[in-house]
């Protein structure tokens, strides 16, 4: 049987690539290799629905086992790739054996940054880590979360919702600094404070008082070792071109591990999100099926904390003008970011219609003025 597509990494990106290969009509062999023991699953519920108790850990699989069989996708779970042989077009497995490939897709994702000096700290990236965290949370009265980013704040909200006394420690001067503007950061400071969460900004882990449970959400680093050992370029991620191809035309990189040129970032971007994983997976599946296109999807993200739903479209860093649309006081508003007169991002708080309109506006590079953005009587859809 001729070698087909081998996908290393069975997270959202790897799964989507296999899924889209079949829907695009790819008929060759597909092997999906993952180092976890579970069927490929969604990660967002781990820090959202599952932790707050609304969603069951058993209900997060992306597809049932029967799907893979019916679609001839060979799943190699609990399996690690040791190396890539680019000359012989094979990957070698840690437990012995090789898999030949015609196309290789690296969807290796990230690993947690480890908090030095806190051996007992919990993390939250995998299903196992989520289970452990839920068990530890059951027995804890006080919880300290190190890191005021999405994961840290989602954990803090869930723990506070379960009646725990929670402190969030963030070394930066405001919450979620990497992802959102200061208006949104301030809104979340207020939201958490109102729910009894103590927030210590400009504070490091070393200054923290002891708690029953410490959870570290201090970011992740891309897993690039396989690519690097195979001689591929690595710079904060596996370097790919605008079609997500590495310098080796047989090898692609997708999802959290891929660094790619993005017009939204104005340079190389490496994004950690479901949207990025899904759209990368689709783009590479199309390329393998001879329908290659430049990757140009609008980045979007979301976070659920308490009763607030924040949806972000575009990348706001580097804005020079920001405009509030709606009412900060009632928690239904969007912040629209502009750079040099052009819309670059919209963060929507409990305004999902604005978010979907934003994605269309940004995809089309359509004009919207700051005055229009601020005017609630102006329907954003009218600019599309």
């Amino acid at each position, binding site marked *: 049987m001729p070698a087909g597509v081998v996908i290393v990494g069975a997270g959202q990106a790897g799964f989507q690539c296999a899924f889209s290969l079949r829907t695009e009509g790819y008929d060759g062999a597909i092997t999906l290799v993952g180092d976890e023991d579970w069927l490929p699953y*969604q990660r*967002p*519920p781990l820090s*959202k*629905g599952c932790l707050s108790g609304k*969603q*069951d850990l058993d*209900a*997060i*699989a*992306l*597809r*049932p086992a*029967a*799907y893979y069989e*019916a679609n001839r996708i060979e799943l190699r779970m609990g399996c690690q790739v040791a190396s890539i042989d680019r000359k012989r077009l094979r990957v070698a497995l840690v437990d012995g054996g090789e898999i030949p490939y015609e196309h290789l897709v690296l969807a290796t994702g990230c690993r947690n940054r480890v908090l030095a000096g806190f051996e007992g700290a919990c993390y939250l990236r995998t299903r196992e880590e989520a289970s452990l965290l839920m068990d530890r949370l059951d027995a804890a009265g006080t919880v300290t979360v190190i890191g005021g980013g999405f994961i840290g704040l989602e954990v803090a909200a869930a723990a506070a919702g379960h009646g725990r006394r929670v402190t969030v420690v963030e070394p930066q001067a405001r919450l979620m600094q990497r992802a959102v503007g200061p208006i949104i950061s301030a809104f979340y400071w207020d939201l958490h404070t109102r729910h009894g969460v103590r927030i210590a900004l400009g504070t490091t882990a070393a200054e923290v008082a002891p708690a029953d449970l410490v959870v570290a959400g201090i970011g992740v680093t891309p897993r690039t070792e396989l690519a690097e050992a195979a001689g591929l370029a690595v710079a904060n991620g596996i370097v790919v071109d605008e079609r997500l191809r590495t310098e080796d035309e047989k090898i692609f990189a997708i999802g959290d591990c891929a660094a790619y040129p993005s017009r939204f970032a104005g340079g190389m971007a490496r994004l950690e999100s*479901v*949207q990025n994983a*899904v759209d990368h997976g689709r783009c590479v599946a199309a390329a393998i099926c001879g329908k290659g296109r430049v990757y140009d999807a609008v980045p979007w993200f*979301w976070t*659920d904390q308490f009763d607030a*739903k924040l*949806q972000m479209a575009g990348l706001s860093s580097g804005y020079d003008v920001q405009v509030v649309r709606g009412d900060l006081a009632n928690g239904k508003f969007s912040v629209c970011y502009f750079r040099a007169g052009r819309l670059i991002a919209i963060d929507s708080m*409990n*305004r*999902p*219609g604005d*978010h*979907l*309109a934003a994605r269309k506006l940004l995809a089309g590079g359509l004009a919207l003025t700051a005055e229009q953005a601020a005017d609630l009587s102006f329907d954003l859809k009218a600019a599309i």
Partner: protein
Amino acid sequence: MASAGDFVLTVHDMTLFSRKPKETVSITYISHAGESCTAAVPVGTSVMEGAVSNSIDGIVAECGGACLCATCHVYVDEACLDILKPIAEDEEEMLGNTFAKRQPNSRLSCQLSVTKELAGLVVRTPEAQQ
């Protein structure tokens, strides 16, 4: 007084109980092309999760059920509309932005919690979700 044998039996029964499959109701998904699939969907999950766990094409559910991508849009059979809980504010806003045209019987399937009352529900998926 219970004998040792009774004790073993009791434990055995408890084990059986805990493994008892969750109660399900039957839901029918009909594709745009008219292909019909009836699935047993556990009470407590959502109509969207029932579709995904049965590999029903036509429902994308990119956000995994958070009511923020509008890619699990379905048309609910008119006869079943009354048994559904009303449309909440956030679902209403997302329904204004579906890819396929919104109809009076449009719903987001991630917002339809499966209860015993939903037994026999019929939903149709649109031609495309995005």
